[in-house]
């Protein structure tokens, strides 16, 4: 018994290395050598990278973290939400390495925290309704009337008799800021609107409520909600859709080490592909 164990142990090790070798061969022959080139700087890095802020950024942050940890599992990347305001505040106070925001930080914020801004994508803010709702197109004026509480029933917009349930986000949301500025032209939002706390919460709220209308980052669009064209332009990558904003990753001072490599990766071809796959328009540095 004892002997058998002794023999098996080296065999296990040999088999492990054989498998590893095979895996490396396969990875080398894989379809994305370019992606691995972009990941090369991470090979001999280690440590923790802390990211927080805008919730629209999260799908891209997660995809990038997954790719980086694939080549080097010793790197730990934590990704938290909180909203644009929290992202700017936390990076400014040194609590995180990268603070994401779905709006350009204000001049005061940039000066106070010595922020460096990296805009890596343009994100559309899509107006969404429940998939059961056949309304797929609204004019900007109609959108304003709906959010101001002047249009209150879907019958007024050509569907059945069902009250419109408004959903909006809290003041700290970058998504709200863009929607309010560009979608509503700074129009009023009815005080009877329901408030949800994040892009994900918005999606599940609209997905479960037939009378709902809400807005979210196009990165969160899927089949559970239906996007609505505004003034004939569908929320997509085309430039005609006007409710859009930059997605920023901000650092305090010039980024260094792992932080710098992470931001470089976002601007690499592989990173830009991840951004496009998430539904955003990649922006070159």
């Amino acid at each position, binding site marked *: 018994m004892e002997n058998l164990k002794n023999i098996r142990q080296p065999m296990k090790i040999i088999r492990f290395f054989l498998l590893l070798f095979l895996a490396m061969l396969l990875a080398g022959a894989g379809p994305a050598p370019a992606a691995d080139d972009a990941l090369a700087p991470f090979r001999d890095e280690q440590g923790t990278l802390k990211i927080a802020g805008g919730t629209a950024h999260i799908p891209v942050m997660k995809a990038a973290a997954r790719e980086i940890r694939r080549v080097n599992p010793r790197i730990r990347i934590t990704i938290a939400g909180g909203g644009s305001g929290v992202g700017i505040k936390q990076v400014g106070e040194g609590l995180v390495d990268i603070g994401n925001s779905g709006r350009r930080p204000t001049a005061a914020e940039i000066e106070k925290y010595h922020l460096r801004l990296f805009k890596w994508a343009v994100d559309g803010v899509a107006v969404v309704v429940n998939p059961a709702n056949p309304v797929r197109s609204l004019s900007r004026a109609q959108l304003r009337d709906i959010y101001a509480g002047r249009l209150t029933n879907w019958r007024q917009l050509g569907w059945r008799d069902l009250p419109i349930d408004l959903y909006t986000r*809290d003041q700290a949301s970058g998504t709200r800021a863009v929607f309010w500025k560009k979608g509503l032209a700074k129009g009023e939002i009815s*005080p*009877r609107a329901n408030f949800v*706390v994040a892009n994900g919460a918005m999606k599940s709220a609209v997905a479960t409520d037939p009378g709902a209308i809400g807005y979210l980052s196009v990165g969160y669009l899927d089949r559970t909600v239906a996007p609505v064209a505004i003034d004939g332009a569908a929320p997509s990558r085309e430039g005609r859709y006007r409710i859009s904003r930059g997605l920023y990753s901000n650092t305090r001072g010039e980024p260094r080490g792992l932080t710098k490599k992470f931001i470089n990766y976002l601007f690499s071809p592989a990173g830009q592909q991840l951004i496009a796959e998430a539904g955003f328009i990649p922006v070159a540095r």
Partner: protein
Amino acid sequence: MNQRLQLPEKFFRLAAWGSAGLSLLILVFMLILGRPLLGHDLFALVFHQPWQPDRQLYGLFPMLVGTLAVSTTALLMALPLAFGTAILAAIIRPGGCGRLLVRIVQLLTGMPTVVYGFVGIFLLVPRLRTLFGGGSGRSILAAALMLALLITPTMVLIFIDSFQRVPRGWQTAAAALGCTPMQTFRHVILPRAAGGLLSGTILAFGRAVGDTMIALMLAGNAVAVPCSLLDPARTLTSQIALVFAADFSSLEFKSIFLCGLILYLLTSTLTIALRLARPTVGYQP
């Protein structure tokens, strides 16, 4: 003997004063941080203005109404439920069935409130929406129903405890005088347990006022003053959770300390008032 007691006694005294001092310190902390708003016309702030941070209006009246409406409704629903359960478990069937019931109730007290919120979103809100036709289903009623579920177990356990603390001898004496079990309950147990019932109710109300997740997820968080149980509402706790991500130097952010102050005063005055009005029926030791 005396020597040996000293150290633990010192320790416990320190712990007691420490925690008492801590709650006072929290009050001071909120007063200091909320000071920029205390300069405003406080009465107008709390009772008159709407909440429109875009226009520098930071009224908290809708949230005050929301908090009171949600927690009072929850208490009114939970009280008969808890009372009935406690009587069944402690007096009518103190044996096997009652003990099983107590075990289940104990299990319920440990449930995290976010679970209630989650269940509410997927099971309760859609049903309320179809039942009452129109509206998003996110309402005072939805939050109150879930909150009632949250606070009932606490009340049941405290009620049972106060029933069981009535001396056995009194009950046997009442039975010997020819009282039926219900008469014993009505004239012997209930008056003696009144203080315990009151504490249980206060504790439960405090828990309902202080809970955040359930109202945040189910009440809709609209900033209008609610007019019916089916209207959405925002509680003071949800307000803190929603505004927390705002720019930390803004008045909007500072107003959440006023929210905290109102919550603090609300629960403490309620506790003091009810303690003063302690029922004096029955035997006072």
